[in-house]
């Protein structure tokens, strides 16, 4: 879970370039920036817990997006039976998912901690399948929605009219990031988790209960997904495969940011979100927007590998 340190001038030139690019885009395609920031922060919000699990527990969770689905259905169910606002239901969904995560960790994940990466992939792939199909059996494939008035609220500033709800993704992403960083840097438990991520054996011999940390981090990650679930529910349709595309996106963001770099995930998410929104706004070429995602991803990873190779 190390924040990778780039030293020298690069530290300043890159963000500077990014800011210049952002201003240029904003002048020509202001909406692309707004939409991009909104969607990008959602990607980041969902990717951060995945990266957390990957970095500390060392598990690549293919069922990550399906926890989002599960959380959204729980929020939906709460809404339908009690009328509780989806945003408020976060306070129920996140703890519930935390418990689900803890249970799954105990029953399955803890058994494959020392297994090869591939076995972990297969395990979480199986869990993803079970989650998707159970949800499908209970709620069918028919999409569900929750309508709340504020989800389509908008604001106008000087002739710009834009939706405000999705800025909650940005708020949540920044909030989660700040809290996670505070947790990892400044609490005893967080430091322990950070240590476990770097060297589990070393952590054991200084008296850290590594198993407990794994359980905690895995459950926290799943719990954070519950926040995203509550936030997206008023804005999106949910269906059994609703969350699964986010697994891939999160996985990509984590790789792009560099393993364990939580702040980098937010930046990567924003960059990809804006890139996507930009291509989507070009008439006749919106179908190519996916290629931005893959293209930027490949470019970043390849360039990083050339720079980072020790030969």
């Amino acid at each position, binding site marked *: 879970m190390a924040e990778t340190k780039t030293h020298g001038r690069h530290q300043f030139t890159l963000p500077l370039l990014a800011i210049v690019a952002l201003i240029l885009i904003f002048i020509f395609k202001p909406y692309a920036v707004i939409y991009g920031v909104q969607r990008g922060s959602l990607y980041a919000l969902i990717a951060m817990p995945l990266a957390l699990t990957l970095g500390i527990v060392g598990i690549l969770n293919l069922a990550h997006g399906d926890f989002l689905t599960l959380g959204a259905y729980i929020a939906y169910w709460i809404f339908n039976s009690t009328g509780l606002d989806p945003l408020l239901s976060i306070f129920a969904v996140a703890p519930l998912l935390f418990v689900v995560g803890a249970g799954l960790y105990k029953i399955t994940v803890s058994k494959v901690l020392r297994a090869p990466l591939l076995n972990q992939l297969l395990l979480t792939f199986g869990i993803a399948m079970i989650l998707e199909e159970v949800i499908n059996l209970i709620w069918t494939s028919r999409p569900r929605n929750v309508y709340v008035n504020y989800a389509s609220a908008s604001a106008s500033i000087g002739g710009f009219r834009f939706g405000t709800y999705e800025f909650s993704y940005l708020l949540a992403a920044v909030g989660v990031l700040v809290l996670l960083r505070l947790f990892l840097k400044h609490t*005893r438990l967080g*430091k322990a988790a*950070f240590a476990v991520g770097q*060297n589990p054996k070393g952590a*054991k*011999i*200084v*008296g*850290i*209960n590594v198993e407990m940390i794994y359980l905690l981090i895995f459950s926290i990650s799943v719990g954070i997904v519950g926040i995203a679930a509550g936030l997206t529910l008023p804005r999106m349709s949910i269906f059994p495969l609703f969350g699964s595309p986010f697994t891939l996106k999160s996985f990509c963001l984590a790789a792009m940011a560099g393993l364990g770099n939580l702040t980098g995930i937010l930046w990567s998410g924003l960059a990809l979100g804006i890139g996507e929104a930009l291509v989507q706004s070009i008439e006749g070429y919106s179908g190519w927007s996916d290629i931005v995602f893959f293209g930027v991803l490949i470019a970043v990873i390849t360039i990083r590998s050339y720079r980072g190779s020790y030969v």
Partner: protein
Amino acid sequence: MLEIRNLNVYYGKLHVIWDLSMTVGDEGVGLFGPNGAGKTTLINTILGLVTPKGGQIFFEGRRIDGLDTHKIVREGIAVVPQERELFPFMSVKENLELGAAFVPHAQSRMNELFNFVYEIFPVLKRRESQLAGTMSGGEQRMLTIGRALMANPRLLILDEPSVGLQPSIVAELFHKLKLIRQNGVSILLTEQNVRQGLKAIDRGYILENGRIALEGTSEELAANEHVKKSYLGL
């Protein structure tokens, strides 16, 4: 302080430690023997990283075999493993802090322990904010010992502390171990460099093929013919 009774350890079908009994009191104890004799296995077993098939381990009268590693460490045993097992992306200070943070009887005395460690290894004080991963091998070894001391242990276990270190550092290291010993910390160490090792301990065991072949005070061992020939090269 530490008592091992009739310990048997297997790796799969391989019998690594045979019916081994030994004790460590308020003293420095050395564990010598050729490669593959089972020294590291024994240490790992004491720490709960390896589960024994039979026998008991007591620490200050309490049975610790079967406990999880972190619980054993919290009982008051600290270890300096052969592979340093540091936290490379944390500073020297953070590494030291973590040494104490999870051990109840060390937490409250954190400042005192910092002073103690910095006194023994002034270099750590100077490098306080350096990332552990960027330090040289010798410095990392010192940091590992420092981290173990931060746990305010009553027993400090060191596994081959001198391997790969330059002669001047090795000499310094054993000098420091004496200092630590004088502070009332019991020491159990394994060492190939028996000549140096004997200086830091009061008593020693020779471990061969998973069994104790010989035991005695450091003087007795130094005078023993077998030890002289095989371990001291005389």
